[in-house]
């Protein structure tokens, strides 16, 4: 808990002191929250995907704990992405949410799918069964990530296209971002990665205890 607050503190420090885009003004600092968060969410769901496959092939509770812990952390970061993006949208576009935008809608669905992944685990007290079912959601869910990534190219709408993986970067070798902004963005990514690892450790412990109680009912605390 202490480590988490320290990381969040450093994260807010870089947001507070970080440079901003001259056209957008201060609101562009939301970039340091929004962008690393969604990258970590993608990363977390990819790990969930890998461990879900591992669990389907070999029903080791350790694989399931790892998949769930990553999905939970991913869900936290997806929520941060949606909230920070919505605030940025209000300040830049002039609207909290644009219903006609593919990337916004698909990201909201991504959130719902992994919310479903986590809630599917409480549908049945039989952990062996729910773990198996949820691991299928963990496998299907991953396909949304490339669709979301390319959504800004496939469907022309309000969300700006990628900066770092953009045509400009391919053409010139430099992303259309000032070096100092890019540096702070990198720092934000380091902090969110560490934060993600702490979340995963925390959530894994919870899942391990659940499995322990399920597999050895005699160890359960006496009521």
């Amino acid at each position, binding site marked *: 808990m202490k480590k988490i607050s320290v990381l969040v503190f450093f994260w807010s420090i870089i947001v507070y002191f970080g440079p901003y885009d001259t056209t957008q003004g201060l609101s562009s600092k939301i970039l340091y929250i929004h962008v690393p968060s969604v990258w970590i969410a993608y990363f977390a769901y990819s790990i969930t995907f890998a461990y879900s496959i591992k669990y389907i092939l070999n029903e080791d509770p350790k694989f399931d704990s790892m998949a769930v812990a990553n999905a939970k952390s991913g869900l936290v970061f997806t929520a941060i992405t949606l909230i920070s993006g919505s605030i940025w949208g209000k300040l830049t576009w002039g609207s909290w949410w644009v219903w006609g935008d593919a990337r916004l809608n698909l990201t909201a669905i991504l959130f719902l799918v992994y919310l479903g992944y986590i809630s599917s685990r409480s549908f049945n007290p039989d952990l062996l069964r729910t773990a198996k079912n949820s691991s299928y959601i963990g*496998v299907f869910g991953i396909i949304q990530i490339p669709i979301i990534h390319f959504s800004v190219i496939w469907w022309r709408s309000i969300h*700006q296209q990628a900066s770092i993986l953009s045509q400009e970067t391919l053409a010139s070798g430099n992303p259309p971002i*000032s070096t100092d902004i890019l540096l702070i963005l990198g720092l934000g990514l380091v902090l969110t990665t560490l934060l993600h690892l702490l979340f995963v450790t925390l959530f894994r412990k919870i899942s391990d205890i659940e499995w322990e109680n399920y597999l050895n009912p005699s160890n359960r605390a006496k009521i």
Partner: protein
Amino acid sequence: MKKNILFIFLGLILVIFGSINLANNNTVYYFTTSEALEEIENMNERVKLGGFVIKDSITKINTKTLFSITDGNTEISIIYDGYVPELFQDNMGVILDGVFEDELFLADNMLVKHDNEYISEDGEVYNAKDYSK
């Protein structure tokens, strides 16, 4: 094991098909000024129009804002009546919602579209070719 793989495969197809279908049906495209002028006879209903605000074209009359937008090739004059986002300014990308009256576009909703450039005040300036203008 084979049943599992088939199940995963079917699930993946369902998710891909579902998301693409959903995005296709619900995503509102905006027309660029050139596209809109080409098909101006068919523009009887409300449409979305996107482009960059032409420099020094903005004038305000009462509640209405008059300006022109361009995609680099063609221009369309806009009469806008509605909430003006804070970032609305010269050279900014905007997406307008409204109707055509001859070659004039009457809009009542505006979104400011920011591009993918982030240039700080004292940082090194992004020096590649200028793509947006």
